[in-house]
C-alpha cells in the first residue's frame, strides 16, 4: 500500500494516459472501443495504458453485460492533493482573512 502513490505518479507521467483520463473526465462509462476512437495509438497500446491506470486506481471499471465500462476515479489524486496542498489550505484561508481584516481596518481609519 506504501507504493500506491508511486503508481499514481507513474500512471500520470505519460501524455497518452493523461489524455485517456481527460476523455473519462468529460464522459464516464466508456468502453475500450470508445476510448480507442480518436486516439492515434493502437488498441493494444490503449489496453496497456488502461492496465496501468487501473493498477493506480485512477481508473475503475464496471461490467455491464459483456462490456467493461471505464470511469475516472479522482480519489487517489485527491489524496495527493490533501497531503501536499490541503494541509496548507487552512493557513491560506487564515492569511486571506487577516489580509481582509487589515485592509478593512485601514479603510475605517
Amino acid at each position, binding site marked *: 500500500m506504501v507504493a500506491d502513490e508511486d503508481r499514481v505518479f507513474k500512471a500520470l507521467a505519460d501524455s497518452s494516459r493523461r489524455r485517456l483520463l481527460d476523455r473519462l473526465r468529460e464522459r464516464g462509462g466508456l468502453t475500450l472501443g470508445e476510448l480507442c476512437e480518436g486516439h492515434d495509438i493502437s488498441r493494444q497500446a490503449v489496453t496497456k495504458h488502461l492496465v496501468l491506470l487501473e493498477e493506480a*486506481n485512477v481508473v475503475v471499471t464496471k461490467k455491464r453485460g459483456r462490456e467493461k465500462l471505464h470511469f475516472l476515479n479522482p480519489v487517489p489524486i485527491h489524496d495527493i492533493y490533501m497531503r501536499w496542498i490541503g494541509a496548507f489550505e487552512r493557513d491560506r484561508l487564515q492569511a486571506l482573512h487577516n489580509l481582509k481584516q487589515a485592509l478593512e481596518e485601514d479603510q475605517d481609519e
Partner: protein
Amino acid sequence: MSKSEFVYTTYIRTTPEKLWHALTNIEFMKQYWFGMHCVSEWKPGSPWHMQFSDGRICDAGEIVESDPPKRLAIKWRNESKPELKAEGYSLCVLELEPHDGAVKLTVTHSVDQSPSKLIVAVSGGWPRILSNLKSLLETGSPAIARTIDSRGKTA
C-alpha cells in the same frame, strides 16, 4: 434510457466492520463529512437523510439494501436545491470488499438522467469525503477537519 453515473474507489487499511461503523455512526460521520451527517436505522426500507451541521436537511430518501458489513444501497434525492430535487431519486451504492489487508470501498452513484446536475454536485463532494475518511481510519485524524453549513460557509 441515458444515465449519469460515477464510480469512485479507495483502499483503506481497516476492517470491513470498522468501515461500516464509520459509514453509519453519526459521531464518526461528523468527523470526516465536514460536520454533516446521515441519520437512518440502516435497515432495508428505513428512511434516510443527510443534514448540514446547522440541522437543515440536504438530501433524503430510504435504504434500499443493507447487508452489513458488505453492501449498502440508498435511494437518494436532494432536498435543498429545487433544480436538483427536480431530478428525482438517484441511487447510491456503497460496497466494501476485503482486499489484501485493507478494504476496498466503492461508491457508485447514478441517476436515470443525462446530463445530471445532481451527479455533478455529488461527484465533487465524494473525493474529499473519501480522502478524509481514509485519513481518519488510518491515522486517527481527518485530513481536513472543518464544518460546512447549509449556506456552504466553512467554519
